């Protein structure tokens, strides 16, 4: 289906915002201003965006340790998100979550998660709102190729299939589980094929291509909304940087990194497609680039200049106030 110009510009904005944000975070981390580990999403922008453009504000996603891109694609508040990554008092989680535990329930972002694969059952739980309350909801779990081997993920696929829940299992196969290649860690090598075994439709798509992801996301989301159950989407993409910032990546060659940045750039691929088809004017895209650059810079500066949490907050929000 032909996407409207507005939807295309929206998608480009989300992808580009992820790129600019992550490049800025990379530089800030190198300067030592970020107080915790970060895991960059660059190279996978088309996945989060291709899925999230098919979700409503009331739909939910559960995310991974590599979650900045998911937050941005789900339209989380950029300033508050940045503050959280800098562990500031006014961050989305009041500074106690940090990069690996950002959540923004106001937009259905149920949290980044630092336990690999643990977010899959949580997405299944959100999907129960369709069964229990008849709510119109789709719930997506982003799952890395590394996480695809976790028992929690298998159990989640089975439960969602048995209960016919509206879940999208989005496998982001970026080639590496931490420092270990997918060729080594994934028995059988076919993540999408495993999902099929649980009795759900399963797709394998080019995760560097927004249109490839979005097209199947639309199909899967529609089926989920109709009560026809879960789907799996394996998106094959490239991880441009290390497992975390600071990872020396001894396990990769310089040539590999050069090749993927040249041939598997989701933003370049998107631009080429829409410009060649005459769907969007390149001037519009350039304007978005400029606006985003200043928006991200402003958010980072604001975050860096905002206060850390008060020490009195150390033991708050363990339990509901006044209940313990």
């Amino acid at each position, binding site marked *: 289906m032909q996407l409207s110009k507005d939807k295309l510009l929206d998608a480009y904005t989300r992808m580009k915002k992820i790129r600019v944000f992550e490049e800025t975070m990379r530089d800030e981390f190198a300067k030592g201003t970020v107080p915790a580990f970060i895991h960059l999403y660059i190279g996978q922008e088309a996945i989060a965006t291709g899925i999230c453009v098919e979700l409503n504000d009331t739909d939910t996603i559960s995310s991974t340790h590599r979650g900045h891109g998911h937050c941005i694609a789900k339209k989380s508040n950029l300033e508050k998100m940045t503050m959280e990554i800098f562990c500031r008092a006014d961050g989305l989680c009041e500074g106690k979550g940090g990069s690996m535990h950002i*959540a923004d*329930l106001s937009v259905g972002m149920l949290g980044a998660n630092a336990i690999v694969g643990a977010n899959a059952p*949580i997405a299944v739980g959100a999907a129960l*709102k369709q069964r229990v309350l008849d709510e119109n909801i789709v719930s997506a779990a982003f799952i890395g190729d590394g996480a695809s081997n976790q028992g*929690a993920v298998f159990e989640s696929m089975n439960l969602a299939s048995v*209960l016919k829940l509206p879940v999208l299992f989005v496998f982001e196969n970026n080639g590496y589980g931490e420092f270990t290649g997918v060729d080594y860690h994934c028995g059988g090598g076919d993540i999408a094929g495993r999902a099929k075994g649980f009795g759900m439709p399963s797709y394998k798509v080019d995760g560097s291509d927004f249109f490839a992801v979005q097209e199947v996301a639309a199909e899967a989301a529609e089926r989920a909304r109709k009560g026809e159950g879960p789907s799996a989407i394996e998106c094959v993409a490239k991880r441009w940087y290390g497992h975390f910032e600071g990872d020396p990546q001894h396990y990769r060659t310089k040539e590999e990194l050069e090749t993927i940045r040249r041939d598997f750039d989701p933003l370049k691929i998107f631009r080429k497609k829409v410009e060649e088809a005459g769907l969007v004017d390149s001037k519009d895209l350039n304007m978005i680039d400029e606006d985003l650059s200043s928006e991200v810079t402003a958010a980072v500066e604001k975050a860096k200049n905002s206060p850390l949490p008060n020490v009195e907050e150390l033991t708050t*929000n*363990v339990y509901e106030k006044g209940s313990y």
Partner: protein
Amino acid sequence: MSIKTYRESIIEAMILEMKRDEKVFVIGEDISGGRGCGDFEGEAAGGPMGLTQGLWDEFGAKRVIDTPISETAIMGAAAGAALSGLRPIAELMFSDFFGVCFDQIYNQAAKFRFMYGEQGATPLVIRTMIGAGIGCGPQHSQSPYSIFANIPGLKVVTPSNPYDAKGLLISAIRDNDPVMFCEHKSLLGMEGEVPDDSYEVPLGKGKIIKEGNDITIVAIGQMVGITQGCVAKLEEKGISAEIIDPRSLSPFDEDMVYDSVEKTGRLLVIDESNPVCSFGSWITSMVSDEVFSSLKAPTRVLTPPHCPVPAAPNLEAAYLPDMDRIVEATDYLTNYS
């Protein structure tokens, strides 16, 4: 008011709360039973121990959700549902099974509010069976409540009778934090007077079962009844024991214990958990810290020995603290000088 069993009280609490709030639902293994068995319709079991009997007939499969044997998915889905605004009651059939799903309990549900701020409220009840006494052996008889109570973000309750079981479960369902609701399998058939209407027993409030002046005995879960059974023997020896049932371990009614120990000067805790880092040792540690000058004798904790729960009936009987050991320990502490 009528006579009900511990089991009936638990079922009644769930029915009342499910009627009151459409967001409350129950999820677990075989909680109705019989799904997927040919043409069978209806409730085959209502839980392996009958703790969800009648729910399926009343509320149907939308809110009484049978699952595969898949504890991680059950606990995680319940955690995610709670984070998303539902109020799940998830059944962890035997508490021993926490070993296969604890990540979803202690890294996820228990931490959501802290990690995510106030938006991370997690109104979740995990109903789970604890305890030795009916020959279930090493992997179906444990009482891991000390481990649960060790986790910030979890609340833990251990009802010892039908009245508290109903009131505590209603409070737990209405609470906005994850609660480990530890049901003792030896108590399921215990009878007691229980109001028909809804009522709350507040979390974090203990109960003085019997007043006394010579020694404070804090007993947990099944141990409450066993301790009560010692009263006549202790009175024969001229010992006036004050018996406290904390009902909740987390939050814990510290003040009730401190006040009692200030009066009696002696403390004995009867605890079914493993002795190393047991909940009982935490109670004695708090008492030493807070009311040391009131103590006339060392504090003592009676637990099973540091071994798994055996299957053989004679060994299981030797495993659990019993009346003889309680009387002996009480005697020792009250005669200490």
